[in-house]
């Protein structure tokens, strides 16, 4: 093998190594996206769990409409799901809002309350999942 052939062989090795590296990087990125998607689905259901709980307790009158904020504002929860070996951290906020969900000063007269849930925790989750629901005073 002369000098030229050795240089060409070296270039070939460099080319294939670059392809292998970029390919592996793409696979890792794709795996990250899939992990993230799976966690987003779980976080979505955890958000719904909290918001459904507020609904349920309003239905049963265990929770008064005027107590939504004192009961849920700035509350944190930690949920560990054994089958996933993951712990999710929930931050719940509640506020007075208007009919569009825009937060108003705490002492405002309004028929609406807004409960926000933010879920974070698993390292593979790229950003926290947020969800909110509006609750309306019904006089029922």
């Amino acid at each position, binding site marked *: 093998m002369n000098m030229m052939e050795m240089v060409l062989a070296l270039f070939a090795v460099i080319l294939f190594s670059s392809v292998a590296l970029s390919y592996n990087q793409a696979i890792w990125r794709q795996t990250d996206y*899939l992990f993230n998607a*799976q966690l987003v*689905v*779980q976080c979505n259901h955890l958000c719904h769990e909290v918001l459904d709980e507020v609904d*349920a307790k309003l*239905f*049963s*009158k265990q929770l008064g409409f005027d107590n939504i904020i004192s009961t849920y504002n700035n509350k944190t929860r930690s949920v560990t*799901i054994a089958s996933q070996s993951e712990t999710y951290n929930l931050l719940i906020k509640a506020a007075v809002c208007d009919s569009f969900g825009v937060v108003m000063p705490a002492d405002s007269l309004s028929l609406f309350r807004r409960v926000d849930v933010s879920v974070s925790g698993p390292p593979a989750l790229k950003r926290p999942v947020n969800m909110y629901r509006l609750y309306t005073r019904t006089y029922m």
Partner: protein
Amino acid sequence: MMLFTFSTQLTETAQRAIYTSTMIDYMDQAGSKVNALIALAGIGIPADDVVKTALSDRMEFRTMWSYDLDVLTPDEHIIELKVEPGISDLGEVIAIRQDGVLLTNPAYVDSLTYVESGLVKYYGYILFVESMRFKYFDKNDAITNNKPDIRSAGIELGFKRDSVGLVSRPLRTSLYIRCFFMNSYMRMGA
């Protein structure tokens, strides 16, 4: 040789990615279906009498809603959820029965293809299931197994699907959902 290896790996990775993304979507739909099913539990039934069977792997509840006809009926129905051996090689299934009769969509049974046709109808089978575990909660969110006290259920669903290329490396996903017996809560507040 390197290119051949790349090509094989690329094919397998792409297949696994497509399967996994499909399963994530399927898992979300399955969770929503179970939630929608339990949302109609206990209609017309006293709050303390809704849950008939509360085991860790099987649940039965009462309701006046007919999932089969998609209407409110004057008769009480018993709805059962449990994991059963599969009807094909698609893994185990969650079988949902109303009064002992499987809620079926012909498309499920005939072609075994998954057909999404709305949440309320076509419960029958939820496919690709590996496990389903129930935990029960009372009105104060404390764990209970006392049937009259049950107001919500936490359900851990595990899914498994054989991958195309490597059957020895099945794709697994899992989901935890909490379903509230909303009608029982409404009865408590009435």
